[in-house]
């Protein structure tokens, strides 16, 4: 097992800067999730750690070794690809044992390690099958199994669940979490799905345009986002951001506040004359356990509200209230103002 240290890590493709100086510490055994929108550089960063992309500048350490110039296979990492990258002409056994074979691990030892990983992932019955004969979830497990048999220090996952349907994704998510608990290895996981990030991570790294926007536990990012980008990226539906003037009804704001954020689930509906803000319901989306209301505020902005139970009809006038502890204040530069509640 190993820790990981990134210092001012940079990657350029020609003149295009993809990773623009990333600093990060990953503790031994930690589950870290890189999350961000498409093109933010999260997969590139993962491939730099794996050695599949070289480092343009900065320092990359795995354990106490600088690995900038170390070959991928000698870094002690294993990677699970989005496409699974299972060799179609090899059966499950040979796919899982491929790495051991090329490293000249003796046959019996190879068999033992493949059997061990197969048992762990409930793949015993599938060892003779070819990838084309497996379901998406089974392929995913084989890909994870292939990573496990090499006994790596660090596991890297590159959007491993994005090719699965919603139900299977939830199932595999819990399997990966259970696997981390059992193995205890350092794991780095890339996803664009913030729900996946929230549910799996010990620590989330939010990336945008090749830079780290914020690093923290899921709770920290949800409750104390550093800026509007993180505030809106983490949490679903995304946080409402209102101009300071429109949100004046919520109460006092720190000096320099340009906008106020409030999560849809932190707003409550009251009678129009009793609300801190008021407006008209434009659309009601019923989702079963709750409803999502689109409320056109009197100040002109649209605000999302999540409510349980009965929801008002479209066109109904409503009042909105929020607890002051749930308000997030941002300056003109989009950064959080911390001097009221934070």
């Amino acid at each position, binding site marked *: 097992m190993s820790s990981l240290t990134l210092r001012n890590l940079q990657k350029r493709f020609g003149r295009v800067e993809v990773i623009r100086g990333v600093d990060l510490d990953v503790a031994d055994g930690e589950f870290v999730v890189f999350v961000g929108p498409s093109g933010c550089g999260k997969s590139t960063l993962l491939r730099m750690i*794996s050695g599949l992309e070289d480092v343009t500048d900065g320092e990359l350490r795995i354990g106490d070794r600088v690995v900038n110039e170390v070959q991928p*296979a*000698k870094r002690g990492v294993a*990677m699970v690809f989005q496409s699974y*990258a299972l060799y179609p*002409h090899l059966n499950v056994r040979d796919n899982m044992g491929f790495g051991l074979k090329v490293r000249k691990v003796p046959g019996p030892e190879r068999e033992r390690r493949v059997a061990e990983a197969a048992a762990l992932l409930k793949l015993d019955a599938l060892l003779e099958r070819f990838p084309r004969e497996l379901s998406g979830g089974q392929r995913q497990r084989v890909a994870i199994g292939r990573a496990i048999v090499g006994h790596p220090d660090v596991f890297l996952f590159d959007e491993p669940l994005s090719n699965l349907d919603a139900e299977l994704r939830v199932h595999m998510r819990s399997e990966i979490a259970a696997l981390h608990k059992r193995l205890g290895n350092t794991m780095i996981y890339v996803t664009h799905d913030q729900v996946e990030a929230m549910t799996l991570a010990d620590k989330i790294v939010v990336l945008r345009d090749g830079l780290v926007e914020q690093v923290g536990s899921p709770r920290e990012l949800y409750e104390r986002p550093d800026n509007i980008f993180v505030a809106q990226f983490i949490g679903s539906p995304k946080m409402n951001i209102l101009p300071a003037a429109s949100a004046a009804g919520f109460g006092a704001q720190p000096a320099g506040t340009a906008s106020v954020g409030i999560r849809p689930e932190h707003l409550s509906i009251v009678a129009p004359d009793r609300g801190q803000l008021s407006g008209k319901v434009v659309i009601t989306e019923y989702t079963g356990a709750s409803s999502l209301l689109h409320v056109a505020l009197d100040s002109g902005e649209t605000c999302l509200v999540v409510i349980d139970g009965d929801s008002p009809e479209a066109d109904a006038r409503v009042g909105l209230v929020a607890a002051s502890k749930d308000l997030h204040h941002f300056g003109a530069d989009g950064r959080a103002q911390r001097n009221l509640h934070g």
Partner: protein
Amino acid sequence: MTARGERAPWLTLKMREAMEAWLFLSPTLVGFLIFFVGPLFAVVWYSLTEWNLLSQQTTFVGLDNYDDALLRNPDFWQVVRNSIVFAIGLVPLNMALALGLALALSRRFPGVIFFRTVFFAPVVTSAVAWAIVWKFLLQGEAGFVNQMLAGIGISGPNWLREPDWAMVAVIVTRVIKMVGLNMILYIAALQAIPRDYEAAARLEGASNWQIFRMIIWPLLGPTTLVIMVITTIGSFKVFDHIYLMTGGGPENGTLVLAFYIYQQGFQFFDVGYASALAMIMFVIVMALTIVQLALRRRDT
């Protein structure tokens, strides 16, 4: 009032779709029947006759033409041997070179399009121009190739005048002309292999050679089979190249099956015998193709 849509159509939807499909297929189908299936049956019939193009007399002779070729005419076996030598020389050389070029030119690097064009250009070059240029290059002492060899102290043979060397010369010049086609097929196949396979193998510690041998080569299998079949068939059908470079000589050293058939049919006007030879060639090529397919099936 009855709406028009309610009346049952004359033809069901399925029948109309089938009719449209046949209608669209018909131009090709008619051409295929007239210019391919028709002549094929004609050749089978001619092969059972003695038909002299000059006298225009046709006599049914049963399997006599086949007897002539297989049992009585020693030239035939010499020609078959030449064709096999040509195929054995050309197919592996062509495929190895095509794969090597494809591996080098399937990646992106500055100038890659230029190099692909250079190696593909001979495929679309006129066979006549190609043969004439190579005949000049391969001339005895005055030829460019021998002058280059002389420059490094080697005395080159008279390439197109010595039977063994003539075969080498026609094989190599044919390979250079046609290798671009197989190169393109291999490039397409290589580019269709997801890059993640290589990345995964590299992460697991595989060397370049191991990646090629254990991942790339097996995945190229279907393409290799197609290339092997079409190149083998092409090598048995080679005509223009031989006609232009050596005319089958010297001493029948490069007289291959397709050219021999042409000689018999259009120089000696023995269409019946030529047709029987064509049928034998058809069977040989078919048998080779079946063997290759069977070998491939056994391997997978």
